């Protein structure tokens, strides 16, 4: 029989009941897990214009993007399971209806990286590491590690139709996004030129150099917002022209149009463009998200940002002064 019927005391006693010691096996499980989980870097230092100390390469537990320039055929060992690949002229919008025959098999990594596996699109991608050229120059291999509900597309990955991450080389910037007329392309092509020309067609909210640390190459970033165009459809709208994708004939039967624009359809999006200069080419990673992106979606976006790396055996070139 209780000595008092004080409700607070009863509730406190009730809440204090239950297990009070975490099982030893649980600590062991955590210990094992953290040894294979990479830490996120502090992106605030990253975006602040420089890291105060060299940062560790970190997977962030969600995604890592590494563009690797390799000097061997990236299609060596391409068909680990005997399947073939074809790229259809599917819409670049990740929200478009996928064709049943639209599939792309990732190239096997030219290294023996145990993380790399086959990447297919369109469709959900299983958690794990991937390596793919997305049909671009086979000397580029974008390697990334995914968790948590990502969908693969021909130019990158998306999540919940609220965030997309795409990877592509930039051949030219448009002067008119709907007409797709091109801005001048100087012989000294660089990320600085891209940012300068981009600033003439969109309002750059922020731009600058991104820091060099932990294996990162010099580069630039730019932030801007895209609104649904009024003079053309979202699928017609383009900001960049890319090189023609290159696939061996026995691998690719068709390629997507060489334009990059609004990846998430005709809705307003926020964009963060990260550029690196490699061997005279400008390589981009574009993060794009809508106002419908949840906190989880944005956390996934930040994880990609924290972990982005571009590795190359070629000499890096310093970016031209930012145009923004």
């Amino acid at each position, binding site marked *: 029989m209780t000595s008092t019927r004080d409700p607070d005391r009863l*509730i406190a006693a*009730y809440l204090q009941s239950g297990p009070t010691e975490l099982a030893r096996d*649980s600590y062991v499980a955590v210990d094992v*897990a953290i040894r294979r989980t990479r830490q996120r870097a502090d992106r605030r230092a990253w975006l602040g214009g420089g890291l105060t100390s060299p940062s560790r390469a970190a997977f962030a537990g969600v995604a890592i993007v590494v563009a690797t320039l390799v000097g061997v055929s990236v299609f060596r060992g391409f068909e680990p399971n005997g399947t073939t690949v074809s790229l259809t002229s599917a819409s670049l919008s990740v929200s478009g209806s996928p064709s049943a025959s639209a599939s792309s098999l990732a190239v096997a990594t030219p290294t023996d990286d145990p993380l790399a596996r086959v990447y297919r699109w369109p469709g959900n991608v299983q958690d794990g590491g991937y390596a793919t050229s997305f049909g671009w120059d086979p000397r580029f291999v974008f390697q990334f590690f995914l968790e948590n509900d990502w969908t693969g597309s021909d130019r990158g990955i998306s999540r919940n139709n609220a965030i997309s991450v795409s990877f592509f080389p930039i051949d030219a910037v448009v002067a008119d996004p709907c007409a797709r007329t091109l801005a001048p392309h100087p012989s000294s092509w660089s990320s600085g030129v891209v940012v300068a020309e981009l600033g003439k067609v969109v309002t750059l909210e922020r731009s600058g150099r991104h820091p060099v640390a932990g294996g990162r190459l010099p580069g630039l970033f730019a932030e801007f917002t895209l609104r649904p165009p009024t003079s053309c459809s979202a699928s017609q709208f383009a900001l960049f022209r890319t090189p023609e994708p290159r696939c061996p004939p026995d691998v690719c039967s068709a390629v997507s149009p060489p334009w990059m624009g609004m990846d998430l359809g005709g809705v307003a999006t926020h964009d963060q463009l990260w550029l690196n200069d490699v061997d005279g080419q400008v390589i981009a990673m574009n993060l794009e998200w809508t106002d419908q992106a949840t906190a989880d979606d944005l956390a996934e976006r930040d994880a990609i940002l924290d972990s982005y790396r571009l590795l190359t055996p070629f000499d890096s070139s310093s970016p031209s002064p930012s145009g923004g």
Partner: protein
Amino acid sequence: MQRALVDQARAGSDEAFDALARMVGDRCLAIAYRILRDADLADEVVQAALIAAWRDVATLRDPDLFEPWLHRILTRQCYAVARQQRRWSTDVRLVAIKPIEPDDILSVDDRDQLDRAFRRLTVEHRAVLVFRTTSTGRSLRSPCEWVHRSGR
């Protein structure tokens, strides 16, 4: 000592984080169990929260706030698990077959009534109640503010 371990963990020491986990794990389990009222789920949630904390500890600005920060992560994990559980819940409530220890304060009837009442609360309300009755030394005005800052 905890601050030193947090600093080392932020610098990438998994041994330091392991030691931190052992310092805070029991308390996390108690909190998670009080919110979820399921020992197995609470154990899973604590593991997930610790792993998430390891992943993100470099973003922690003030090492002295490690434990409150961890509790926020833990609470979010509890919310996520509770949402999943709701999708699959039925009207059948499993009753754990275990001896109920005699209690100076709670009779069997009291415990049963409180249990049923607690389960009718949303997980967010449970979290408020748990932190209202738990002394953690945080300098927050109210548990509602704390729960709000957990992003719910």
